[in-house]
């Protein structure tokens, strides 16, 4: 049964989530010749985005979600479990917001890939990558990380329970390798990026954080390297699923020093006085002090789980875990228009709230939460790019 729905679910989600990638690279690739051209292009880009970005990804995604249902209700190999597992297996609702903010460069990247494991539509991939030096390592992670994780998951393949720690570690290592060879392997069609234009020999001075969550019906697997963060809201309480890799974290400091490196305080704690995080993908010049090895947590999902928030430090620098979870939950609560039906559904509990509210609106709650958090970060003076992903984990949602 799982196979049936996965085959259906496999292809569409990729398109849904790549929308973010497409619009960003379209903007980057466009080269202006004359003013009129540029203006026209901007209008076109905008129109494209208006039509495409959030609405379309939500719409396509809603479509993608509907599809696996059809074979199941029609073929229904296990009728008893049908409705329960349907709820459990389809991708949870999500929303994201990723803005340049007060920086002049956009180096954050977000990747959302529902049903990313071939042969199983049950697991969904969410990632936030915060680049430094340039955006190309973050972009590479955005494009490839989910495929690499899927491959490693398949290789580990020992039945239902692969050792996620190893899957994540190998995936991060492969992306790290890819970043190291970026200058050699990249295709000539890719637009030359900032770092290359300014410092051809310094591609290894580029890196990215990576916080990756695999959401399955029963588990939350989080792999993290760097200072982006995953936070779970469970029964109204924020639970950090990753711990930031800062150079002054005692165990990290010890590790760096044991490897012969130093942490120097220069506008905060920095590895060799340069990088303000102790783990990252890329940054070949700071190896072995800066490592790409992720810390992995596996959390069993519970009925008390409300949402998962992944975000770059543009958010976490100015918003606490608690505040972020409060805002997301408030968005869930106030979801939908203030009509009696919706209000009733909300009042009578979360499980019902999702039945009473259409999917599009519920997705809107997640993206409203992500947007509100991004706005809050900007209002609190965050000077960095801000990327936020909110995943609705409520059972039956």
């Amino acid at each position: 049964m799982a196979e049936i729905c996965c085959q259906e679910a496999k292809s569409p989600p990729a398109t849904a989530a790549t929308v973010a990638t497409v619009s960003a690279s379209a903007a980057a690739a466009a080269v202006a010749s004359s003013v009129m051209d540029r203006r026209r292009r901007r209008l076109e880009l905008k129109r494209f985005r208006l039509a495409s970005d959030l609405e379309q990804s939500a719409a396509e995604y809603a479509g993608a979600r509907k599809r696996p249902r059809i074979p199941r209700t029609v073929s229904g190999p296990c009728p008893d479990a049908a409705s329960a597992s349907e709820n459990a297996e389809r991708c949870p609702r999500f929303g994201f917001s990723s803005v340049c903010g007060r920086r002049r460069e956009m180096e954050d990247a977000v990747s959302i890939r529902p049903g990313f494991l071939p042969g199983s539509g049950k697991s969904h991939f969410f990632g936030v990558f915060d680049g430094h030096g340039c955006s190309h390592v973050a972009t590479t992670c955005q494009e490839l990380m989910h495929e690499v994780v899927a491959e490693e998951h398949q290789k580990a393949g020992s039945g239902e329970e692969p050792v996620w720690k190893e899957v994540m570690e190998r995936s991060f290592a492969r992306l790290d390798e890819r970043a190291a060879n970026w200058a050699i392997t990249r295709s000539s069609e890719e637009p030359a990026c900032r770092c290359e234009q300014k410092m051809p020999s310094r591609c290894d001075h580029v890196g990215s954080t990576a916080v990756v969550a695999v959401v399955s019906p029963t588990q939350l697997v989080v792999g993290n390297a760097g200072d982006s963060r995953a936070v779970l809201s469970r029964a109204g309480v924020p639970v950090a699923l990753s711990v930031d890799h800062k150079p002054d974290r005692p165990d990290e400091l010890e590790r760096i020093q044991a490897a012969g490196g130093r942490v120097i305080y220069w506008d905060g704690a920095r590895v060799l006085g340069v990088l303000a995080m102790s783990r990252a993908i890329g940054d070949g010049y700071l190896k072995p002090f800066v490592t790409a090895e992720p810390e992995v947590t596996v959390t069993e999902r519970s009925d008390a789980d409300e949402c998962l928030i992944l975000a770059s430090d543009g958010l976490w620098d100015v918003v606490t875990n608690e505040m972020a979870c409060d805002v997301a939950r408030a968005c869930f609560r106030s979801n939908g228009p203030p009509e009696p039906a919706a209000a009733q559904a909300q009042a009578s509990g979360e499980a019902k709230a999702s039945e009473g509210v259409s999917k599009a609106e519920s997705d809107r709650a997640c993206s409203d939460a992500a947007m509100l958090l991004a706005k809050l970060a900007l209002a609190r003076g965050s000077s960095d790019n801000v990327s936020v992903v909110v995943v609705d984990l409520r059972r039956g949602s």
Partner: protein
Amino acid sequence: MDMARYVAFHQQWIAGQQAGLRELAEAAANAAAGRATDAELRAVVERCMRGYQEYAASRRALARENGAAFVAPPWCTAFENSVLWLGGCRPSLAIRLLYSISGEGLEEDIEEFVRGRGRGLAEGMGLVGITATQLQQINDLHRCTLRDEGYLTERLASLQENIADRPLLPIVRERAAAAAAALAGQDRSAKRDDIPGRPVAAESSGGLAAEVDAAMESYSAGLARLLEEADELRMSTARALATEILTPRQAVEMLMAAKQLHLAVRDWSRRKEEGAQNARLPLAAAATTAPSGSKP
């Protein structure tokens, strides 16, 4: 003469800004009190945008006469000039401004919202109430604007670097050499009591002066072209924000904040500069401030 015309043009523009600010402030107050329809607000926004458009059109014509004057206007204060980018604000400033004002009142609204009170999401949060879709659109516009700003910045850099190249540099060198030769000739002639080199040097420097004027004018024309494109980028960014992405009410808030910022920076820096001048030259102060200060 020309300069007086430019100054008058600028003063007229400032007066227009002040009037525009009054109109926007009134519209914002009416909107806050629920007394203004969207159509009315849209008309105010449209008038404001037309004001910018007309200013850019007139300035384009003037800048073709003297590009340098409009890129580094002597009628602005040093402080104003320090924040200018190709004769005006950076196009991306509109977005930074919007981010700043959209933070106003947000903290309080979110606080209430989290407690389950206050405004719902439908009304938006904070003074400007940007929605998720708008935020995405603003971000996309931001990235396009930053990219185009980058292109123009690169071209300005090239133009500025050209100053150390043909045609200006060879003229500078030739002239310096000629001056040195003339000096040497003068020394010799002082000894020999005749001046054969002199008329030649004067004649060639007259020819050089024409070449220098031509080179400087061509540089200035290059600046005028960049200024024109910068104005178009400023306009298209502001227009996309004010008429395509934001609601009329949000647009009124943004445009009002933009005018407030512009006029306040102007007033403060002028007051400071005049204060400094008065301290230095108490007697001349009246004379220096009169031409620019006499008109409202």
